Every structure is written in structure tokens, then in C-alpha cells.
């Protein structure tokens, strides 16, 4: 295959993380010729999601740190003229450290499954399946359980195409299920068909918990989509706004986070935060319900009632909460789970503002303020890449860049030279900071993020439904330390195999990830081996597998701290530690405005149907709060079916 690329572009983007992908999409959308490169074999950089085997391969790569075995790279020095100089880029990514893996699940018996290197084909790209019960009279009765799977094929290399084929894949499903049967002998396992899970195992009394072995995890490794960064989308956040505005949301599906949890006095509890939650709560007394609602209602427009908080602006938010007649558990809920603030450092105003932000996001798509993308956070950068490709952007993975070519006279970057020795010219260059060499970064100070990824056998708070998506903030034991954010995903988010939960822990680092996070892990989970002790221990979910690592947080680094970068080289940072994606979106928009001050940032794509006179005033009126995304999303497709809302938000 000829890997030669065109040599003339307007913008070259190096790195496929979220800010770079948004920028690539924005540039391509505004008519620029975009080349988007990544030296890795997968999309997303540190924003990626991996199948289980993909994650193992990723780990292997970082553990074999020494091996920089450069294949035949053509010497770049020959490629530049006398009037030019080269700025080399880093050859090896160094943003991940202290990786530690622990396997608790039994590694017995049929352990002859190979951990295949699955990096080349990230399965999350391939299918976004949608469960629809068609209302259409023709097929409701017989095909109650039929599935429509819309699959988007992307060429393994080169440009993704827009022709998302929608196929009625009763067939596909059958095939998939068939495959399923072949590989895992005893379990009918397809996320879509939860209803028909075998009752065999549930008969025994007391109910036996599923024993999941390591080999099962490996066998079903493709069911996992493990995020390197654990983030959620605020339903009123910048990323949702951008996805809707740019119509990129059509490429992704989301689920509403179903629960906000709190950890108090050694126990996990559900936090009632919406009106419906408060109404339904069995734990709160009616008076507590009133006090909580009253406080939350006040927070929604606290600016209008300065007399309510003015006297407390010098106090911490936790001190302020004590004056609001809230019981201790309500104070804890508001401070840690709703405002998500720390006890000591947060002022009253900050707390009120955070509470307000949380509450404003409620009810837009469901009873919590957060959305999670099906198939993992790694979907999001790819969606923007697809958008970029639709408007002509060219994609190359596994494509290394040796250096930036700078014109000595003007001091501007003119071109890059890739690992094949090809020189590619462009006007603007956007580089993710992990590609910058040590020399360029010698003055830069980084923060670190501590991460843990756990595979467990059940939820930290069991309810009737095992399909919950939960977020839990564990406050620090000692004041001043960082709170740990825990996100627990169920199998219907398409990020883990059935009968398991995927748990992400995140905090900003003070030590290595394991040192930072292990104590919280121990509070919430029991290692698999120690299980057959007493009942109380059994109530905790069991830990099957755990990974700790530190990820570099460059979000605070300013552009001016890099040495000798030409002015037309723009730097994107890696993921930040925050819960939302606001930092990445803001960064992309700011850089875009710097490069193209007069261009609109990701405007809605032209709607082919707008050409005809039929269209605008016949849009279905909004059906309810949770169809907002759809109203804009679907306008091009008309309202083909009522389920469109569920399609995008299967909550």
C-alpha cells in the first residue's frame, strides 16, 4: 500500500485527543484542508478507550519503556533547506507512569486464551447499536424484540466516510449471538437481551454470586471499553452544546447517569438530588425533604437572594450549610455529592455556584445532570474526527512525525517531515503536547492524575436493577487531601461484560496512583480471594481485576512556557482531572478563534433538506424535556419515529 499523502494542506493536526479532534473538525468544517495524524495505532491518545486485550497491549507498550527501536526512518536532516531548521518531536510518549496491574479473579483452568493484540481494530468504532421497539404497526407485535443496528464502517486506514449504513440487522444480531454461543458455552450473553438471562444460577438459596474467572474476562474482552480518562458530560455543559450545535451528536449515543451516590460513615447511599428523587426517597423524612428542596430551590437563583448568604461570604461552604437547618446527612450530600466540593477550601459563593450548575443540568435528559457516551468516552474524539473526515479531512494513524520545519527568516513553521521522509506543507500546525520534545518542554511543570480501573462483580449499591451508572465522590480522610471521584459503569453502557461493573477512580495525584487510591478501593471493595468470610464482607462487591496508573495532567501549562515554538504552531494539552470536558472544549474554541478569528466555530452542517421548501415549520413540537438533543439532531431526518428520544438517551 502506498502510504504517500498529498503534500499540501492548510492545517496539520498531530494527535487525536479531544481538543485536537474538535479543532480538526472545526477547521475542516470551515473549509480548510486538514491532515490529522497520530503516531499511535488508535484514536484518542490519552482520551482513548480500549477493549480488555487492547488495554493489556497498551500497558505492555508502556512497560517496555526502553524499547525505542526506531524502524527505518529516513533522515530528516536531508530534507530541509539551508534557510530552514527542524524542531524534532518526541519519539516516545511519556505521559503514563507507575502502571500496576492486579488480578484477583482466579486464573484457573481454561487459561489457554491468547491475549491477542487488539489495538489495530478498536471495536468501539464499528457499531453503535440501538435498541428500538418499533411503534410502527407493521411490526410491533411480532418483532417486539427486534433490533436495529446502525453500523458505521470506517476504513482501517485513511478517511472515515459518512455513509453510515443503516441496516436492518436482525441478521447481524443472530450472527453475533451465534458467535456468542460458540465462545462462551453456558451463557446467553448479549447486552440487548437482558430479559432472557438464564435463571439456572439464581435458584440456589442463598443466591450465589457469579464467579467470573480471568479467562472469562479475557474471552469477553471485546465487551470492554475501558476509558483512560474518566469523565462525564454535563447535560448543560460546553461539550453537549457543541455536540448538538455541530450535529456531531448524531454519531454518538448517550445514557443518563442514573444515580449520584455518597459515601458516609462507611456506607454507600443514594443522594436524592432531583425533585423526583426527593419525592421517592425512603430515607428522608418529609421535613428533611422540605428542607432539602427549599435549599436546592434557593440555590437555583441564589443571586436573587443576596440576604440569604451575604453574611457568610467569608465562611466556607460547609460552615454555611450548617446554618441552613439541614441535617448532617443532607449537608454531606450537598457539599460532596452535589456541589462536589471539598470541606475546607470551598467558599460559600463557590459552593452555591457549583450547586446551581449541578441543578441546572438536572432534568434536561433525566434525573441526574450527567451523560455517559455508550462505548466509552473514547467515542467522543472519534465523533469529531468523523465530522472532520466528512468535510474532507484526511486521517492517518500510526504515522509518526519526525520534525517541524521552520523557515529561519519568517520564524514560521512551513512543513512537517513524517517517518517516511515525506515533507508535508501547511499553514497551521496543531500539536498535542505529548509530541513535543524534552528540549521544547524543559521549562514545563506538570501535574499528575491518579487513576484506577477496576473490574468488579457487582455494584457498590445494589438495587432492583443491575443496570445503573453511578458517580460517587469519596471525601478525603484528612482535610487538605483530594477527594476521589468514583464512576461505576454497568454492562449496558457497552463498556464491560455482563455481570461485571467497570469502576473508574480519579483524583489529582499526590503520590503514585496506587498510593493515592488504594485506601478508597479497600473501603468499597473486597479482593476476590478473601470472599468466603462473613456476611458483612460479602455485601461489598468483589474486585476481579485492578489497574493503577498516573497520567500526566498538562492542562495548566501555558503556551509561553515552551521553548522556541513558531507562532503558527498551536499546542493542545492532554486531559485534565476535572469531571466535565469543559477544559478541552474551551481550549479548542480558543485556539480556533486564534487561528481563524473570523470563522464560526463548528456551525451546524448544512441540512440537505433545507433546500426544499418543506421542512421548517413542520418539525414536531418538543415532546418533553429529554428530546432537546433530538429536536436539532433529527431535523434533517424528519421525525421518523417517536423513539428517537430513546435512541439517543436510553435511560
Amino acid at each position, binding site marked *: 500500500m502506498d502510504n504517500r499523502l498529498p503534500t499540501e494542506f492548510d492545517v496539520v493536526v498531530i494527535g487525536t485527543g479531544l481538543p485536537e479532534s474538535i479543532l480538526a473538525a472545526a477547521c475542516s468544517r470551515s473549509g480548510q484542508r486538514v491532515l490529522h495524524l497520530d503516531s499511535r495505532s488508535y484514536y484518542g491518545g490519552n482520551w482513548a478507550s480500549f477493549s480488555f486485550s487492547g488495554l493489556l497491549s497498551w500497558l505492555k507498550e508502556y512497560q517496555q519503556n526502553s524499547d525505542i527501536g526506531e524502524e527505518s526512518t529516513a533522515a530528516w536532516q536531508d530534507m530541509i533547506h539551508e534557510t530552514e531548521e527542524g524542531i524534532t518531536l518526541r519519539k516516545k510518549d511519556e505521559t503514563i507512569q507507575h502502571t500496576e496491574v492486579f488480578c484477583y479473579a482466579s486464573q484457573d483452568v481454561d487459561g489457554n486464551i491468547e491475549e491477542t493484540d487488539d489495538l489495530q481494530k478498536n471495536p468501539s468504532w464499528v457499531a453503535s447499536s440501538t435498541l428500538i421497539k418499533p411503534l410502527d*404497526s*407493521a411490526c*410491533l407485535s411480532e418483532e417486539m424484540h427486534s433490533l436495529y443496528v446502525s453500523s458505521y464502517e470506517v476504513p482501517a486506514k485513511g478517511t472515515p466516510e459518512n455513509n453510515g449504513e443503516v441496516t436492518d440487522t436482525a441478521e447481524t444480531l443472530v450472527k453475533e449471538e451465534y458467535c456468542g454461543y460458540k465462545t462462551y458455552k453456558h451463557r446467553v450473553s448479549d447486552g440487548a437481551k437482558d430479559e432472557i438471562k438464564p435463571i439456572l444460577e439464581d435458584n440456589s438459596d442463598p443466591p450465589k454470586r457469579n464467579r467470573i474467572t480471568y479467562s472469562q474476562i479475557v474471552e469477553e474482552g471485546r465487551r470492554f471499553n475501558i476509558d483512560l480518562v474518566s469523565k462525564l458530560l454535563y447535560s448543560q455543559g460546553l461539550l453537549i452544546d457543541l455536540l448538538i450545535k455541530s450535529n456531531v451528536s448524531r454519531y454518538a449515543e448517550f445514557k443518563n447517569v442514573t444515580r449520584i451516590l455518597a459515601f458516609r460513615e462507611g456506607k454507600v447511599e443514594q443522594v436524592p438530588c432531583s425533585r423526583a428523587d426527593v419525592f*421517592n426517597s425512603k430515607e428522608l423524612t418529609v*421535613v428533611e425533604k422540605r428542607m432539602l428542596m427549599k435549599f436546592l430551590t434557593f440555590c437555583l437563583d441564589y443571586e436573587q437572594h443576596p440576604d440569604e448568604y451575604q453574611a457568610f461570604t467569608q465562611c466556607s461552604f460547609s460552615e454555611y450549610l450548617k446554618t441552613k437547618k439541614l441535617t448532617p446527612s443532607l449537608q454531606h450530600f450537598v457539599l460532596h455529592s452535589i456541589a462536589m466540593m471539598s470541606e475546607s477550601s470551598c467558599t460559600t459563593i463557590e459552593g452555591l455556584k457549583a450547586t446551581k450548575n449541578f441543578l441546572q443540568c438536572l432534568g434536561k435528559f433525566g434525573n441526574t445532570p450527567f451523560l455517559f457516551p455508550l462505548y466509552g468516552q473514547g467515542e467522543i474524539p472519534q465523533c469529531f474526527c468523523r465530522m472532520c473526515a466528512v468535510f474532507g479531512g484526511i486521517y492517518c494513524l500510526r504515522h509518526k512525525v519526525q520534525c517541524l520545519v521552520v523557515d529561519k527568516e519568517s520564524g514560521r513553521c512551513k512543513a512537517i517531515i513524517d517517518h517516511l521522509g515525506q515533507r508535508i506543507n501547511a499553514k497551521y500546525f496543531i500539536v498535542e503536547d505529548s509530541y513535543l520534545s524534552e528540549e521544547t518542554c524543559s521549562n514545563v511543570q506538570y501535574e499528575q492524575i491518579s487513576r484506577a480501573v477496576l473490574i468488579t462483580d457487582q455494584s457498590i449499591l445494589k438495587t432492583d436493577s443491575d443496570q445503573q451508572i453511578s458517580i460517587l465522590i469519596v471525601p478525603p480522610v484528612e482535610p487538605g487531601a483530594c477527594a476521589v471521584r468514583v464512576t461505576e459503569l454497568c454492562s449496558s453502557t457497552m463498556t464491560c461484560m455482563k455481570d461485571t461493573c467497570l469502576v473508574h477512580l480519579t483524583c489529582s495525584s499526590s503520590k503514585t496512583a496506587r498510593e493515592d487510591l488504594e485506601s478508597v478501593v479497600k473501603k468499597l471493595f473486597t479482593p476476590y480471594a478473601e470472599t468466603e468470610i462473613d456476611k458483612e464482607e460479602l455485601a461489598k462487591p468483589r474486585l476481579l481485576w485492578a489497574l493503577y496508573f498516573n497520567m500526566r495532567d498538562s492542562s495548566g501549562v501555558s503556551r509561553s512556557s515552551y521553548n522556541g515554538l513558531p507562532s503558527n504552531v498551536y499546542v493542545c494539552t492532554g486531559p485534565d482531572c476535572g469531571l466535565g470536558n469543559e477544559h478541552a472544549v474551551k481550549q479548542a474554541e480558543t485556539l480556533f478563534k486564534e487561528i481563524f478569528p473570523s470563522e464560526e466555530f463548528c456551525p451546524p452542517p448544512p441540512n440537505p433538506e433545507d433546500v426544499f421548501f418543506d421542512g421548517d*415549520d413542520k418539525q414536531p*413540537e418538543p415532546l*418533553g424535556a429529554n428530546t432537546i438533543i433530538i429536536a436539532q439532531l433529527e431535523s434533517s431526518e424528519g421525525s421518523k419515529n*417517536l423513539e428517537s428520544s430513546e435512541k439517543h438517551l436510553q435511560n
Partner: protein
Amino acid sequence: GQELRLRVRLLGSISAFYQRQAGELDESVLELTSQILGANPDFATLWNCRREVLQRLEVQKSPEELAALVKAELGFLESCLRVNPKSYGTWHHRCWLLGRLPEANWARELELCARFLEVDERNFHCWDYRRFVAAQAAVPPAEELAFTDSLITRNFSNYSSWHYRSCLLPQLHPQPDSGPQGRLPEDVLLKELELVQNAFFTDPNDQSAWFYHRWLLGRADPQDALHCLHVSRDEACLTVSFSRPLLVGSRTETLLLLVDESPLAVAWRTPDGRNRPSHVWLCDLPATSLNDQLPQHTFRVIWTAGGAQKECVLLKGRQEGWCRDSATDEQLFRCELSVEKSTVLQSELESCKELQELEPENKWCLLTIILLMRALDPLQYEKETLQYFQTLKAVDPMRAAYLDDLRSKFLLENSVLKMEYAEVRVLHLGHKDLTVLCHLEQLLLITHLDLSHNRLRALPPALAALRCLEVLQANDNTIESLDGVTNLPRLQELFLCNNRLQQPAVLQPLASCPRLVLLNLQGNPLCQAVGISEHLAELLPSVRSSLT
């Protein structure tokens, strides 16, 4: 584009109308109307058009063709509902269609309702349709109740869901025949009260929960009854008051009068002479029914439709005789809330007071407290109730007039209770800040009525029911009309000082009161009218009236 589209639509409808008139009711009309209705489902005429066509095709087509037609129609309706899920025409058409199908797939219709309610849980059109479907499919009430549970859990601001509960619960828990129908057993009631309390503590401004609360504490309509029967020898007249207004006449309600156990044909009329639906009806009695030859006469009135009757006795030598239910015993005035279990009411009152402390300005809470107090003991709580009224008026000034009227009603009820207790026929309602007169049908036997120093604007027609009234004091009000002071056979003295009677003409009704001898009109604008004395002398020749 807009205009063009409109024109196309108009052309379509004209052509559809034309075909309809020409009797060409075939599939092409279906096609044509579907184009228009597809864009705008609120076009009732075209739905009618479709129904006519479908009815015609029903007899013409083979069963297979018809099945295909119905399927297509159902599909089309669904697409219309997606355009506008709140279209009366579309839902009605679906009802009509499903009602005609010999073997409708009701399970599918329930599923459709569930889907639409998932999108908008307050779509009352869909709720309506769901009730229709559930009734047709004979869905057990328990299942439907569970469905309302699930929607209330999602969002309790849902009148339709609460309302459906109020229909389903009495079906699920039928009361024994003797008891009042439509009420719930105590354990169910307590569970519902807990649910609704959770709702109004969570959001006290949500009306739907308060309305459901009121339904829970309310009681069934009182049974039909005759409350009072009064016979007067002097006026040769029999007066009856009923538990609800009714219209007596040959084609409406029939009343049978038995005098000394033999039927007597009489002509019934209302006291004000209007013969509109009224609580009180009366008739003239022939002299033979009142003669003094027998030691007593019995009068029995049978209300056939209401299944009620009452009897009273006129003793020899007496001027009048009556038989009356006690308002106290019958608890007539607790109609807002039930009397079922005062412990339940008491605990509801306590939790409402608790809420009121947290939300001192919540009008729903204040009103519910007032109603609960009345249900528990109107006299004991009178003072407290008046205070709550004051607070309520302050927080809800928009409804001040409504609240004044409600307060007047309660005060009048209390006065009647006190009067009964004292066993007198004199009622003092002075200085009570009344704005309206209610329950006048309860005052049939009153001889002296004091309405002075209130804010009354009229003496309403219903006052004519006070057939025994001799003295009426209504000084210091803002009375402008005297419509009710009519046909009062015993009225002798009437005090109307310091009111707002403008024109001499308003005095006209007084001419029908034969025994009126004293009339005080001081301080009314009409006293200054030119020729007022002459007017009075002509209108009321036997009355001694004071103007200054």
C-alpha cells in the same frame, strides 16, 4: 414557501370537500385527506370524511383488504400523533377505529399509550385514550394503578395520574353496600396520604398533589334527602327544602304530596317565583286540607327520584307545623372533608401545621389547614380558622374575594350550628364581615334575622325561602338590590339603613310582601330621589317608611 404550502393545502381541502359532496368516497379521498391531515391533524372535517369513507369501504371490501386498510389507518394515525401528540381529532379517530374492530389488538394499544406517556407523561389526551383502552381490554385496576405509580415516581406533577388513581382505588377497594360509595378503607387511605404528603413536602407549590389530598379527605356526595317540611295554616302553604337544588315539574323531578295519606295534586313553585332549580319548593294547600275538624293533619312529601320522603304534622289549633333535620346531626356543613376517622384528620392537620411552619406563605397548605379544622370541629376551631383566613388572604391577595366568600360561608354555617344548639328561631349575623349569604335553605324557620354591619351587596333571590321571617335587619351593608325580599308572607319590619340603594325601582319586590308595615331606608342614595315619598306611597301604601 410558507404561502405556497398553504395554497396547496387549501386546494387539497377544497378538492376533498368537493369529492365528498359528489359522493365519491373512495380510497382517493383517504389519500388526499392523509396528505393534509399528515401535516395538520387538527382538521376535524377531514377526519369525518375519512370515517365516512372507511364506513363505506367496510361493506365493500373483502376481510383481507379491510384488514390491510385498518393496518394502514393505524399506521397513519401513529404518524399523525408524532406530528402532534395532543391532537383531539387524531386520538378520537383512533378511538373510533379501535371501537369498530372486531378483534382489536389492545395490548398493542396499551404499549402505544405507554410509549407516548414516556415522552410526555402529562399528555392528557393519551391518558384519556389509555383509560378507554384499559376499559375495553378489561385491564385489572391493580395493573393500571401500578402504571400510575410508575409515572408519579417519575414526576408527581401529574393531574392525570392522580386522577386515574382516584378512579382506580375505589374499584380496587369497594366499600360494603351500606357505607358511602367511592371512599377508601383506612389502611389504603393512610398509604395514599403518605404518598401525597411526600409530594407536597417535596414541592408544596404543586397543585396536583393538593387536589389529590383533598380528594382523599373528601367524602362522597351526600345522599338525597328532604331536610325540612313546613306547613302554615295562615298562608295555606307547604314548603319543602331539599339536599340539593332540583327542578320540579312534569318532565323533571316528581314530588308526591300525601295529605292524611291521600294523594293531593298541587302546583309546585319556588319561593322567588322563578321556578329555576332550587333547594326550596312550595305549594298552596286547599282549605279542606287545613280544616280544624280533625285533631291533626299529616303531610307527607315523597321525592321519587331521590328515594326520600318526609312527614310533618299540623295539630289542631296550631298556626304551623314542621319537621326538620338537624344540621349538627347530619353534619351537613362538613361537606368539604370527610368525617371518617378523626384520628386520620387530626394527624393530617398536624403534618400540615408542620409544613406551614416551614412554608408560612404556602396558600395550599393554609387552605388545607382550614378545611381540616372545619372537618374536625368547626366551632372549636372557629377562632383559629379566622386567623388562618387572614394569613391566607395576605399571601394570596388575588383570591381575596373568593376567600371572603368562603369565610362567610363557614361563619354562616357556624351560626346555624349555634342557633340549633340554642333551639331558637332568631339568627344574629351582625358584625361578621360577611360578603355573601349561603345556606339560606337551612333557614326556613327563622323569624328574626340580623345581617347588620356586614359587606353584603345584595339580598339574593334565595332569601325568599325564609317563609317565616318577620323582622329583617340589614343596616350598614352595601346592598344595592333587594331581589330576595319578595313573597315573604310574614315580613313586617325591614331595616335597610346606610346601604347603597340607588333607584326607587329597586324597592319593587317589597310590594309582594303583604304584611310589611315598617321600612327604614335612612342613609340610602334613593332617599334623595325626586318624588320618592310619592313613589313609596303608591308602591307600599300600608307601609310606614322612614327616609331621614
